[in-house]
């Protein structure tokens, strides 16, 4: 983190922007706010017009967005921006990067590398001017008005995200940002970045839904006492707080590392999303009947948690990978 912006200052700014208790705020207003505050240029090197901050700063952003269930394509946009930042020597790059940092929507798949030509889980593709296409040994930026491209809206349970399937078509149009080994290296970096972002979003959401649940237990009375007085419930809350705290510590420890491997980021993502899912599940149960209604925001967290679990490779996948990695380290 640079000398002039501390994590605490950034957290304060995020708190002012999205921490006023307004869950799942208006998409357009949120997007303008994100761009105005410079969040999209946070990780871009200073000589490219960015703020040159590291994962510690983007970690603050993703947890803040998760905490308030902010809609929009920030996560995907940051992947595009990272890819553009890496594409040195392309004449069109500087203009595209400036536009992306300013808030012109450019999007990317949150599912990972496509082997079938279908790019799934692309947020806000209908509003985007460009889509990042990550293929084997090739990464390109394709205008969404290219001939032959198809964009299909997919209605997810989670209404805080708007996902699309994209098939770029066979025209081969678009700007090649990286090829060969460079493309593969960039793809790995993008993947690690996506997994880190999903982990941050999850931990922010988990923190918020846990706080909401604790508050509810303190006010809801049954058997002439607040539910928060029952030890059976307190102990469940204490467990949740413990897992969340450990996962948060791991998240910030990862953020402080100079480089994080894809598997390491995947293990973190698996852990963080599992914690989020568990807490969101428990939140519904502990809220009782009201938690099953649309009028209460509990369900928003559950739906986003489950989606985060599925995006970018699920816990089953990453835990297996982490196990293989640990086995290799032990054998070395």
């Amino acid at each position, binding site marked *: 983190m640079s000398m002039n912006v501390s994590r605490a200052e950034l957290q304060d700014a995020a708190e002012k922007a999205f921490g006023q208790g307004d869950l799942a705020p208006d998409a357009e207003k949120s997007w303008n706010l994100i761009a105005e505050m410079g969040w999209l240029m946070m990780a871009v090197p200073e000589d490219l017009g960015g703020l040159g901050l590291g994962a510690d700063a983007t970690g603050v952003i993703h947890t803040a967005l998760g905490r308030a269930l902010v809609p929009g394509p920030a996560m995907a946009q940051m992947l595009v921006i990272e890819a553009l930042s890496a594409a040195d020597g392309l004449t069109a790059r500087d203009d595209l990067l400036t536009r992306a940092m300013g808030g012109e929507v450019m999007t990317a798949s949150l599912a990972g590398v496509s082997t079938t030509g279908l790019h799934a889980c692309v947020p806000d593709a209908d509003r985007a001017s460009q889509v990042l296409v990550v293929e084997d040994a090739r990464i390109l930026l394709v205008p969404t008005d290219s001939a032959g491209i198809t964009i299909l809206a997919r209605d997810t349970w989670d209404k805080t995200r708007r996902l699309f399937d994209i098939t770029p078509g066979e025209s081969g149009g678009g700007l090649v940002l990286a090829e060969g080994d460079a493309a593969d290296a960039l793809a790995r970096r993008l993947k690690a970045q996506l997994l880190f972002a999903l982990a941050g979003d999850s931990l922010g959401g988990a923190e918020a839904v846990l706080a909401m649940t*604790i508050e509810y*237990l*303190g006010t809801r009375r049954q058997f002439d*006492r*607040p539910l*928060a*007085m029952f*030890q059976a419930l*307190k*102990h469940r*809350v*204490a*467990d949740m*707080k*413990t*897992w969340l*705290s*450990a*996962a948060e*510590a*791991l998240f*910030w*420890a990862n953020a402080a590392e100079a480089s994080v491997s894809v598997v390491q980021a995947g*293990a*973190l993502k*698996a*852990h963080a999303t599992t914690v989020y899912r568990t807490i969101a599940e428990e939140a519904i149960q502990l809220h009782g009947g009201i938690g099953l209604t649309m009028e209460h925001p509990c369900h928003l967290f559950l739906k986003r948690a489950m989606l985060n679990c599925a995006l970018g490779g699920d*816990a*089953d996948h*990453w*835990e*297996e*990978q*982490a*196990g*293989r*990695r*640990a*086995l290799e*380290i*032990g*054998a070395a």
Partner: protein
Amino acid sequence: MTDALERLRHDVRAWLEANAPRGWRESCTSHEAFLDMQRGWFAKLAEAGYAVPHWPAEWPGGGRSLAEQKVIYEELARADTPRLLLSFMSTYHAACTLFEWGSEAQQKQYIPRILEGEIWCQGFSEPNAGSDLAGVKTRAERQGDVYVVNGQKLWSTMGQFADKCLLLVRTSTEGAKQAGLTYLLLDLKTKGVTARPIHQIHGDEEFAELFLDNVEIPVEDRLGEEGQGWAVAQSTLSSERGLTLLELSARMRGALWRIGDLIRETGRENDVGILRDFGRLTTRVDATCALADQFLANRIAGVERVGDASLVKLSYSRTLREFTLLGLRLGGMDAQYHTPITFGGGMETGNWMADFMNSYAWTIAGGSDEVQRNIISERLLAMPREPKGWTLAGGAA
């Protein structure tokens, strides 16, 4: 990390390369071997100035900052040295309580001997005072210049090998339970003291039961005033400052290779279920290490909250249970055949059934998981306490 800390790390590492005991896991198969090894290793560390880095600067080997202590513990864990089990209560619980509550005469009398290897144990828990420590019933009656003590203490770590004991006794039954407690320093060679080892389910004997039958303790061996015992005991219980869990977490991470080896030995390198469990475990271990690290950083920065220590302990104890259970599952039938334990071998020895049973030490001792959950919910998260007033005879009073 500053240059000074890096230098310290380098010095400690170099010293350990030359001096760390080797082969102790194989040789510590009897109490005698364990005691010899522990005494010898402590003396070596004390001589090198690494045994009591947490002591105040006026004592030899003391005056290290928390950040420096952390470096020393990380290096001791990294080199897989034996944990200082025998002298732990002496250098932490006894010494830190004496620093805070002891008179100058008491400090002069006891502190130097700790450095020479005198062993202290703790006499707090009783058959009916475990999680509810304030319920201590061991009686001390003042008769002239002595207290006459009668009662029974349980779970005194290394009590059967100890020379002295930190004793929490009841001097009054009036008023609040906590207000009637007094803190005494007991010489275990005193007439009327019987120490009996407790046989743990995995075959070790790390704790003792103490029987006190008309034991006379001079009044000058009281720490604090009569009735101040609860406050003195709180100092004892908070003496280790978070370093133990940091060290234990680091050792748990350092022992993950044992699971990896077992996966290979049992030919399950491609067993997806096992790989997932192993991957999940390594991540949980990493998270616990990160939490212990963060806890100590917060403590150094002075921003620790009440209850933070409970988060670390609960995260560690549950993760250790998972660690040893995975080892036990992989160990299969082999782990079911009795294998003699390594005394003082730590929490992860690869003797999986023994390790699994021993993991309960951390979910029960030092404030059980259930007590930690109470602390986290009530003190850290400010959830209301349960109403008091239930009585055995009539239900709600």
